């Protein structure tokens, strides 16, 4: 090796097998090995400096804790390092395109985070006098007004805490409306397309309904004939739960007919609003004949997904369902805005869905986002989201198998047709994307498409990012067709290799215990 006069090498010498190099620390360059807090912390450590208690006589009345928690503490530098090290094992939107179909992983603007942390929002109590929180009520009311106008629906229930919770609000309102009509016991059947999100049937069953599945037509929409056949005897029909744009990324072009059929049958139309991002500002669901729809603020309106929540699922309601909305809700009075909190004041309401008033922290973020975009910007959001998805569809069409003919809405759906006889499966494509530095697309959903790959880029990706992603996916598709065996064992470059999920489920270890320490992190 050549060196300069101070002994520094003047060329880089290649190291064979650098990827398999093992280190004493278990770290790999920037990726630091990190144990569990139970392995690195101790019970005599703490990262807080609290005042010393005075040592007064307890008034717990003898209801005292027997054994100590045994939980370890960490000082602040150790704790910060622990979580930063863990964070580096996560993929995130801020790192790159996050094409999970049906999840709308768009950029989370930081202005939203800033306003949510203003003391007047973050440091107010849900039960302090309402006269001292008029600004908070105004935020809820202003957001509600946007949601009503964007959907052209007369009412919105703001308290549901997530999309599935919003579905529950809608279905409970339908249940209450049927009871009010004296048909609560007779109308129990809810029609749900086979392509629906799992939350739809789970929600309906939780409300005491029974599920009747509707088939998908070859074009990926609801099979209208199958729907009609299920409405021949409609005296037991409570309603339909339909996602639009649907989970295949397609607009249900017969939606008005479906709405008319359901209404003529005496049922209600629940629309799953998970895919609202495709049409926000361009199409108002209220113009399509729906009775209820939840809106995922964490999808369409950019509140962060946070590793799986918290979400927020305000639910718009039609004139027919509005009287049954859950408490609390806001009314305008001479003294200002006020919550109606009790059933006694709203006898038709189906009741309460959670403590307090909903996900205020998400309301402030969503409102900041909506005001930033305005009605014109939101329309552009939908258009760019749909344009981006169609661009991906067009670019990958030659190499992969589009599930359906024609344009898509905000997500592009492929089947595993192009993998036939290669031995490579959808999951291998997904894991291959990880090595290329991307989060995989949604896989094996919707269920109506074999080996489904559902790609939703959202509007917050540049053309250059889309091209880079398409290049990566195209190369994986080519490798698959060439039966590249390395795809079967991908990912190779991620912080972890494929994990044994069967083992986890067969003998569940759901917490760390000192008696049976878990495996060492990095050997």
């Amino acid at each position, binding site marked *: 090796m050549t060196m300069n006069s101070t002994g520094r090498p003047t060329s880089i010498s290649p190291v064979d097998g650098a990827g398999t190099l093992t280190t004493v620390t278990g770290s790999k360059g920037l990726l630091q090995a990190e144990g569990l807090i139970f392995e690195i912390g101790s019970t005599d450590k703490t990262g807080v400096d609290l005042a010393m208690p005075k040592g007064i006589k307890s008034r717990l009345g003898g209801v005292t804790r027997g054994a100590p928690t045994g939980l370890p503490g960490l000082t602040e530098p150790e704790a910060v390092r622990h979580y930063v090290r863990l*964070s580096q094992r996560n993929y995130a939107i801020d790192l790159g395109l996050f094409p999970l179909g049906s999840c709308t992983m768009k950029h989370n603007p930081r202005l939203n*985070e800033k306003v949510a942390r203003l003391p007047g929002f973050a440091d107010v109590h849900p039960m302090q006098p309402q006269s*001292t929180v008029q600004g908070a009520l105004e935020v809820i009311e202003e957001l509600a007004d946007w949601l009503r106008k964007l959907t052209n629906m007369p009412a919105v229930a703001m308290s549901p805490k997530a999309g599935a919770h919003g579905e529950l609000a809608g279905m409970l309102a339908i249940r209450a409306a049927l009871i009010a009509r004296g048909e609560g016991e007779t109308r129990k059947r809810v029609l749900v397309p086979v392509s629906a999100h799992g939350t739809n049937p789970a929600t309906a069953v939780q409300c005491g309904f029974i599920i009747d599945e509707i088939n998908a037509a070859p074009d990926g929409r609801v099979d209208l004939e199958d729907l009609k056949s299920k409405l021949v005897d409609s005296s037991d029909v409570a309603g339909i739960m339909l996602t639009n744009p649907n989970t295949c990324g397609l607009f249900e072009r017969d939606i008005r007919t479906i709405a008319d059929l359901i209404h003529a049958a005496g049922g209600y139309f629940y629309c799953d609003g998970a895919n609202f991002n495709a049409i926000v500002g361009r199409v108002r669901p209220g113009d399509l004949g729906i009775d209820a729809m939840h809106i995922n603020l964490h999808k369409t309106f950019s509140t962060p997904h946070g590793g799986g929540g918290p979400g927020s699922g305000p639910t718009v309601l039609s004139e027919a369902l509005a009287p049954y909305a859950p408490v609390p809700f806001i009314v305008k009075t001479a003294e200002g805005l006020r919550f109606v909190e009790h059933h006694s004041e709203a006898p038709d309401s189906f009741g309460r869905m959670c403590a307090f008033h909903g996900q205020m922290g998400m309301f402030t973020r969503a409102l900041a986002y909506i005001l930033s975009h305005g009605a014109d910007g939101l329309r552009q959001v939908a258009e760019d989201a*749909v344009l981006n998805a169609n661009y991906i569809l067009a670019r990958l069409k030659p190499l992969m198998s589009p599930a359906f003919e024609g344009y898509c809405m905000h997500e592009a759906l492929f089947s595993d047709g192009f993998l036939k006889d290669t031995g490579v499966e959808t999951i291998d494509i997904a894991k291959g994307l990880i090595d290329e530095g991307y989060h995989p697309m949604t896989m094996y959903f919707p269920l109506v498409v074999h080996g489904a790959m559902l790609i939703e880029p959202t509007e917050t990706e540049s*053309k250059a990012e889309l091209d880079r992603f398409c290049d990566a996916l195209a190369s994986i598709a080519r490798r698959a067709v060439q039966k590249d065996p390395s795809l079967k064992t991908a990912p190779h470059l991620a912080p972890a290799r494929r994990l044994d999920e069967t083992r*986890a489920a067969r003998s569940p270890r759901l917490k760390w215990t000192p008696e049976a320490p878990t495996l060492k992190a990095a050997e």
Partner: protein
Amino acid sequence: MRYLPLTAVDRADMLKAIGAKSVDDFYGDVPAAARLQGPVPGLPSHQGELEVDRHMTRLSRKNRAASDGPFFVGCGAYKHHIPASVDHIIQRSEFLTTYTPYQPEIAQGTLQSMFEFQTQVAALTGMEVANASMYDGSTACAEAAVMACRVTKRNTVIMSGGLHPHYADTTRTLCEAAGIKVIQLDPAIDGELELGKVVNDEAACVIGQSPNVFGTLTDLSPVADAAHAKGALLVTVFTEVVSLGLVKTPGEMGADIAVGEGQSIGVPLGFGGPYVGLFTCKSKFMRQMPGRLCGETVDADGKRGFVLTLSTREQHIRRDKATSNICTNSGLCMLAFTAHMTLLGDKGLTQLATLNHEAACDLADALAAVKGLKVLTPRYFNEIAFSTPKPADDVLAALEKQDVIGGVRASRLFPGAGMDNVIIAAATECVTAEDIRAYAAALAKVL
């Protein structure tokens, strides 16, 4: 438009590559009557960051923050100090802007923190298993009731008179929809043990709370024995998780399912949400739990790793046969909880709990010294109910004029229950001796 990276040139190029004339082509399936030709009418146009910031700040200033002065409101949400590092940690991009960890190879950060959270919650509650969180304490309570019915194959739920009424109402909503009978005992400051007397052979569970909504601590062990003798489960609820640093745990009391609100550790008041519901149970009921669970396993190289597990309980696999329709957990609030709990450790938690208890004792003493006031809560942690000679509504309004936010009137929670003269007040480590003096002085002036 600062959040939209496509340029006009990009859009034109992309349309050309796709072979479409305009984006209108993509909306061809929308019924003509529902196609808006321009922006949604009646709504304003986009604004800059400065304008939005100004508007939101103006609205926030119309609210009186807890830190602005003496503040004693509790009843299910508590003002605690959150270490600065907690908010920094949860704002790490890799935590804030990621999804549910469905791809474990690139989500070990979220998954390991979930596993640590589950371990911490199990240790705090003295229970065998904890899930990766629910929306909040009230929805956790409702899910516990439904789960008890699944486990026992019975159809009646009995709730105490000290259960937070929002929790009771939330539980009632979910149960009634599922055809479950709900019995609720009359509001009572010290009536949790009544559950042991009324439990019967029909009951799937009895639900008791300690500390209850009036702040009363109760050893529910006798209720556990009575319930078990009848083949019913004991569900215990707590809304103040910091209490677990000092008080007898649900596990020690023989609870089968224990649920509660975790907001007090790491999560700001935030006007009621988002919060973090804690859900725990005995391990024999593990497969009947709602919500997400993280479990340990190994990767292809034999290295320890974590995955979401037992998902055959969940809606995305089981659809109409799932244990619950819940999809999300409360991910980021869970992270805030576990980070704050890690900073506390056993030592910090015990100290924090002691400070809370002492603040409440000081408050009780100061109130008892005011003529006409009577402390009603017999055993407490950091919250007490007391009666005043005048209607609580008037008293609190008068206190507000002196910038003391004195608590919650019981009649807001239990209208028509004859509790018009009762106030529920909490004192945490954030309450100073000066705050307590100001409270007592203001009360003396009002009465």
